[in-house]
């Protein structure tokens, strides 16, 4: 109860700060609109950031030696507002351990569902299907998807923790605001090992900036891992190809060696 309250206030403050900081970006301009004059987010979208490699600024680095330059970490500009994730000390150590063990420990390597907000900036297309009661977000990895409940006036507590959490959405002017909670705490934020616990709450804001770009902002709060809530901000671009779609990427069979190789008759790990 108290927690929800705190969360709302924090998120509200963050929203005001962002609104003041970036007034020019809040223009939805000539974005398409729905039957009820809301922004129409239907379409296939994809980020062009390097956020899935590392949410923070990072130089290039080596990958798995067998893969040569293909596996190398490309350099990237961070998407964390203010530059760095405000970890508590122990949590920062855990992040560093995650990075050291990433080849086998990253849930992405295991073909596990990516969680929130990571699903949004995976290097694959995502599709938004926006109806009058629910919005479905379909991601191009591990069959992950989320239902955004737009028809629950009184958001229900998540019935159980899950990888993708439970999401309730509402419109604030031309911004789709989604509150997501009820996470398992096993997902990572990126390949650099950034993470949160099952106390994670995410508030996302999807704001059209024209017909083919959405500004995606997320406030991340987890009092057991971070010293304060923090924000990421990145852009989603519409995939304009005539045949653009989210292709099926059932990655399970590509993770089985990693997960079960030691249990094969001829062990591979």
């Amino acid at each position, binding site marked *: 109860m108290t927690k929800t309250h705190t969360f709302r206030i924090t998120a509200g403050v963050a929203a005001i700060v962002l609104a003041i900081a970036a007034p020019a970006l809040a223009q939805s301009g000539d974005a398409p609109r729905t039957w009820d004059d809301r922004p129409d987010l239907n379409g296939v979208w994809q980020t062009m950031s390097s956020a899935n490699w590392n949410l923070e600024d990072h130089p290039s680095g080596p990958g798995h030696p067998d893969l040569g330059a293909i596996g190398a970490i490309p350099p990237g500009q961070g998407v964390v507002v203010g530059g760095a994730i405000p970890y508590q000390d122990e949590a920062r150590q855990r992040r560093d351990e995650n990075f050291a063990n990433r080849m086998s420990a990253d849930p992405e390597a295991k073909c596990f569902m990516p969680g929130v907000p990571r699903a949004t900036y995976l290097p694959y297309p995502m599709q938004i299907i926006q109806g009058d009661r629910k919005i479905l977000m379909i991601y191009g990895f591990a069959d992950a998807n989320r239902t955004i409940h737009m028809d629950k006036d009184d958001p229900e507590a998540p019935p159980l923790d899950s990888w993708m959490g439970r999401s309730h959405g509402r419109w604030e002017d031309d911004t789709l605001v989604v509150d997501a909670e009820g996470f398992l705490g096993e997902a990572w934020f990126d390949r650099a090992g950034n993470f949160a616990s099952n106390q994670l709450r995410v508030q996302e804001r999807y704001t059209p900036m024209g017909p083919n770009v959405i500004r995606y902002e997320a406030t991340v709060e987890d009092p057991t891992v971070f010293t304060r809530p923090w924000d990421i901000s990145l852009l989603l671009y519409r995939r304009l190809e005539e045949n653009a779609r989210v292709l099926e990427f059932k990655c399970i069979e590509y993770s089985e060696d990693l997960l*079960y190789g030691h249990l094969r008759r001829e062990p591979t790990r």
Partner: protein
Amino acid sequence: MTLKSTRVALVLLAVGVLVGAAPGEIRAAEADYNHVSITSSAPPESVRWYSEHLGCEAVADRDDTADCFGVEVTFVPQPTMGSTQGTGVNHIGFSYADLTAKMADLESIGVRGSGVRLQRFPGGATLREATGGYLHGYIFDPWGTRIELVEDQENVGFHHVHLSATDPQATLAWYEQMFGGERAVHADADEGVRFGSVWVFASEHPEGTPATTQGRAVDHIGFVVDDIDAASAELRAAGVEFQEEPVVPENGRSAARRAFIYAPDNVRLAMVETGFAGVDTTSIAPVFVDVTEPYDTPRTPWDEPDLQGVWTGNASHGIPLERPEDLADIESLTPEQAAARRERGTLGSIWGYEREWRDTTLGYDPNAPSTQVAMIVDPPDGRIPALTSEGERRAAQLAFDRGRYTNSNIAGPEEATPFVRCITRGLPSLMFPGVYNNGLQIYQGPGFVAIQKEMIHETRVVPTTSRPKDGPTLTSWLGSAQGRWDGDTLVVETTNLNARASFRGSSPDMILTERFTRISPTRLEYQFTVDDPVVWTAPFTGRFTYDMDDEQYELVEYACHEGNYGMFNILSGARARDREAAEAAGR
């Protein structure tokens, strides 16, 4: 024969107890053990199960009651909250003269199709010697009741009720004081109270207070008394609380009355008057969906037919794909046949799952089981057309792959089925109703429909405006879907399948055409046409229905691969057997 003589013996023993009671001894009531009430999703099927597997007999004019060697086992159609374990009634017991043979019978049947679940002792045995020196073991009925089987030559038949008590001595004393009975020790080991041939035992509850029996697999146990008024007065004087005063229950089959009291350890206990013949409960008032009226499909705000919502295939669970040969001329099943079929279908598709897992047996699904005879409606004989020779080869390969997974120690995960690997059930199989997680959610936006199945979580995105076709080498497990609206019907054509989750041998050439039509405010008809000339000599079409369940059903995240402990266990078991085989060969 045996049954009759047992019943006579029960009466004689009861009289013996009455005669044996010392004059002046304080007894609230002189009662005999009467019945066990078990919650069930299909009482007639439960009667059949107890008759077939435990030797009980059906009772004339009471399709919800089995006569188990003089004790009535009554099945009440109501939603269940779970098995007996953890409640004040841990299990009930049956005795057989040759338990080794009985257990061998039960083991040979196998859980699949019978729903007989065996509990194995450490080491794998199903029977062992109890403290009292007699042979015993445990099984479960398909509705969550734990049943102990014992070999007690002197007392064959319904043997005991085993309570789980915070203070076993006090509990046994309570039953003796309230209902008569005789304190005795069974096999020089188990303290109990004896009511005729039926023992009441009590063991210490492992932790805390036992959960209430009400709503669980054994809802209550029952005693019979001659004078319920006198017995009630005495029980009340002894401080017993009544949940329900003695009344003739609604739909009672006789004029005899019944009361419910709270026994120790949260055990719900019925006290019935002599002559009580149970209550006529005609199942959980099922909803029959009327589809005789033409139905105008509602439109979305952007003016497309509106199929959005949560649907389940629970009512259709149990419809066979092909028409059984003995039902060649039947238009449809009776509701009773349909209920029995679905229940058997559920038992046939479990591998020992608790009832709580199964959507169709939990009792909350409001819809009557479908009376449709078979899914296949074209060809009209309800049978899949003949296979081509390539089709025969492919079907044989599929059977080999499945057999290898079921019957051998698989070398690696790829020898398991795609379903076991959590990849997919394939098309059209993933649309078929299963034993649990039957939710189907349909989402729509302008020009797109998403079809989401809860089971192992799969989502199909269907564009309803014409899209460029994928090239022939871009194949996938669920293929490429192209939709269109044919009036109010969503038509989905799927091609580019990799055929690795093959439907009965289907090839990459398969074209699957599905039709989704709302035929009533709450019912969605689903049709599928399989056209694969490589495998079958003619196309064929099946249909079944989904029911709207927006109010109570929400799809949960079925993180199948993420939690696939089964794969670790299957593979580590296979390696353990490899080692055993190697050791045996080296010997």
